[in-house]
């Protein structure tokens, strides 16, 4: 069921088009993420949904009714801000109870609901503390609790995990998924962190320069990016310049710089002589020593040029013939070793036909 419909929304700041004719449907109960680099318009779009900014044109429909003229305080949406925006002069309990107080609930009801919410987010013993007496993670939980307590139709989250350190962020991601599932509230989550978006979302909209490049489930976007921008923005990917030389219903035959002819799965709308890139994810490239036998469709010989040790995996930089350079990634499955190959080792890289794809420039 569609909760929120965004219809042809455009927002300009002077000559700069921040949001350019965007259409979106948000389903009830969904964890929806707006993902994009800074300046792509995702925060502007969020502010328009919250009601802080008015679009220059377009409509926002809630349950089919246009809410463009409804002020933020009257929209049944709450926001979790990046800086948390907790009220410094109120205790944790008063902060969490604020939306209930504003909606005119009785003191008794506020107290009971705040107490039970505090229990849910495991902050009961901090009820009388002030925000400055809390750690980053605790502030974060207070902000979530405050956003959810009055059961909004929609919770808008503006990079809420941005200020936390890596380890805490991972824990909070898990808590966030649980919170969303328990509360049953629709989330619109804004972030520039692609791993966060992939881990949390039901669906992701990739934004760039005020437009949406692709909408879809995380695995769909990761595996089948529609264009070069999306492929590059989500995860790592090898991209080699390529020209289409033959098309068929199931395959595209490409002429790839340095590799010669390579076939990739067909896709709609691609014509002969289209220029673009052949893209392969590093983790889908296989590497073996040059003496081994392999069955993959495409194999090329090369040499290890360099490597980056990350801990669980190691990324290898490989020079293929004709000085084409690609990256491949292998898990460090050998106990006690940081890498499986040495610099200068001659190797064979290969991939399955389905792993590669052609993306237009």
């Amino acid at each position: 069921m569609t909760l929120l419909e965004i219809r042809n929304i455009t927002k300009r700041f002077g000559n700069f088009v921040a949001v350019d004719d965007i259409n979106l449907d948000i389903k009830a109960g969904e964890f929806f993420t707006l993902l994009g680099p800074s300046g792509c318009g995702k925060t502007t779009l969020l502010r328009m949904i919250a009601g802080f900014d008015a679009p220059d044109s377009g409509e926002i429909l809630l349950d089919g009714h246009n809410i463009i003229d409804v002020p933020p305080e009257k929209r049944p949406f709450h926001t979790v801000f990046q800086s948390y925006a907790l009220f410094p002069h109120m205790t944790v309990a008063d902060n969490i109870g604020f939306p209930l107080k504003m909606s005119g609930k009785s003191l008794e009801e506020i107290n009971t609901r705040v107490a039970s919410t505090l229990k849910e987010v495991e902050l009961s013993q901090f009820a009388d503390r002030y925000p400055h007496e809390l750690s980053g993670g605790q502030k974060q939980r207070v902000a979530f609790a405050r956003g959810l307590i009055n059961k909004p139709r929609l919770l808008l989250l503006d990079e809420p995990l941005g200020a936390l350190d890596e380890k805490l962020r991972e824990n909070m991601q898990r808590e966030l998924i649980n919170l969303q599932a328990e509360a049953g509230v629709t989330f619109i989550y804004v972030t520039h962190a692609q791993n966060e978006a992939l881990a949390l979302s039901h669906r992701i909209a990739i934004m760039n320069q005020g437009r949406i490049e692709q909408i879809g489930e995380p695995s769909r976007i990761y595996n089948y990016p529609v264009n070069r921008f999306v492929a590059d923005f989500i995860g790592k990917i090898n991209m080699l310049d390529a020209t289409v030389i033959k098309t068929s219903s199931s395959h595209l035959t490409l002429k790839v710089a340095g590799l010669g002819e390579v076939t990739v799965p067909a896709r709609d709308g691609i014509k002969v002589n289209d220029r673009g890139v052949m893209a392969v994810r590093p983790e889908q490239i296989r590497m073996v020593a040059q003496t081994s036998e392999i069955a993959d469709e495409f194999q090329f010989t090369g040499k290890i040029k360099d490597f980056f040790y990350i801990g669980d995996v190691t990324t290898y930089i490989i020079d293929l013939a004709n000085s084409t350079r690609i990256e491949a990634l292998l898990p460090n499955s050998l106990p006690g070793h940081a890498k499986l190959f040495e610099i200068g080792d001659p190797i064979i890289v290969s991939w399955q036909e389905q792993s590669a794809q052609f993306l237009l420039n």
Partner: protein
Amino acid sequence: MITHRRAKWLMSGPPLLFLLVFFAAPSLIMIFTSFRFPGEFGGLAPISIPTGENNGNYGLTIETYQFFFSDIIYLEIFLKSFAIATLTTLLCIIMAYPLALLIARSEKKFRNLMIMLVVLPFASNFLIRIYAWMIILGPESAFSQLINSILAIFGVAPVTLLFSSFAVLIGMVYVHLPFMILPLYTNLEKHDPILLDAAQDLGANGWQRFWYVTWPQSLPGILSGSALVFIPVLGMFAIPDILGGTDDIMIGNLIKDQFLGTRDWPFGSTLSIMLTLTVLCIAGLFSWFARYQTRFL
């Protein structure tokens, strides 16, 4: 570590010495004076028994304190001063708040200009500004005539604005308004605007955003502004002297009269001590309240 501590003492030495000489010592002299008899022609009567003469008072006494508490008029003047100081402070808060808020929320490049305009009256002499009010409130002034012609429409007899408590209050508010605006502005300017967005987002309308977010956060500013207004107003004598009528005597006028008019130094000292004690109590109350109000900082 030791040199660090010595440096601290060296730095605070001169101001400490200054306060010792020009505040502590005069206060002690004043306390001592309050327990003495006035001299026949002003000044003080001698402490020791003068040889060869036996008329007049000498030595130490608590007579001035008995005198202070025996006549209700002094308490009344204290209370009246209190009332004027309180009223001035409240009026200053009411008038300064919208202005400080306006300045704090205008564009950064205009703020300094507006603050300069607030401070500008200090460029001319305090007494001259008060005398200006004498003219403005005088019976011949356009302002007075306007007020009276408006009153006449409603059938009210003409009023004299000058030499009244009303005139004193106007003068007090006028002189002390910047002392409320400045600390209030300094406070309001530091408020994080995202908190207002958050409040609005969570369902607060304009009035609720002010009452639950802006106002409580501005209490420290109101408090320091109130201290800067209330305490000087309590001891003020020039404004009631110039703009007030015969009834508008405040503590300051009373003290001034003891030293310059009736030449009763001991009683003047007693009144001064009473005023100082009152101010200390109020200052203590302010700082206690400030600490209570700013737990969240």
